[in-house]
């Protein structure tokens, strides 16, 4: 699926597509808002939820990797290295 096709779907269908074929990358939390980043085929999708994933505030698509950085910064490398050392 290309980004344009995805952006034309209803929010419900977009969530369905992400559930079926999206690869979860990471999550950001800000007060009661949660934003999750998925990769779907050749693009990325950010979903912002409010109130512990009860309501979708917005869904945005990107075809660049610029958004990845803030999600990757959430990963604690030290902890992962400790797991590898085990």
């Amino acid at each position, binding site marked *: 699926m290309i980004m344009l096709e995805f952006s034309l779907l209803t929010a*419900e269908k977009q*969530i369905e597509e*992400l*559930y079926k*074929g*999206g*690869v*979860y990358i990471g*999550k950001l*939390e800000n007060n009661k808002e*949660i934003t*999750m980043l998925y990769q779907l085929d050749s693009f990325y999708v950010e*979903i912002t*939820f409010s109130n*512990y*994933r*009860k309501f*979708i505030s917005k869904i945005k698509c990107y075809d660049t990797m610029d958004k990845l950085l803030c999600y990757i910064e959430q990963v604690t490398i030290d*902890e992962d290295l400790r*797991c590898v050392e085990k």
Partner: protein
Amino acid sequence: MTLKHTVLYADDDVDDIELLKDVFLPYSNNVELVTFANGFQLISYLQNLKTEDASPCLIILDINMPLLDGKETLIEIRNSYRTKEVPVILFTTSSQPRDKEFAFKYNAGFITKPLNYQQLGHIADIFIDYCSDEVKKSIRKVI
């Protein structure tokens, strides 16, 4: 007094724990959901169970957790005489085939986490279907 069936759930994500609490809420008269922030805490709980305590009817594990991740926890569970037959589900954001294969290898279920509350749907039924027939009947009889 009805004895509750115990479901254990380990996940470091507070958001997902809230999601699962809502999933089991309709069954709260008959199911007690006990949550842990990582596999290490879950294993400690299991190791501290007395002989007369009932074993959990189901164990749900996130994969990516600190200290002891879901896969390591599953191995520990299967290596213990007391819990080797307890139904276990890997409940995860992962869609990696190797994670599914791992679950299969250790006789565990594999369920992808729903993105939002609307996708919860019948997920409680899916979880309960992993329990033994006797437990399934007992839980569903109450509803």
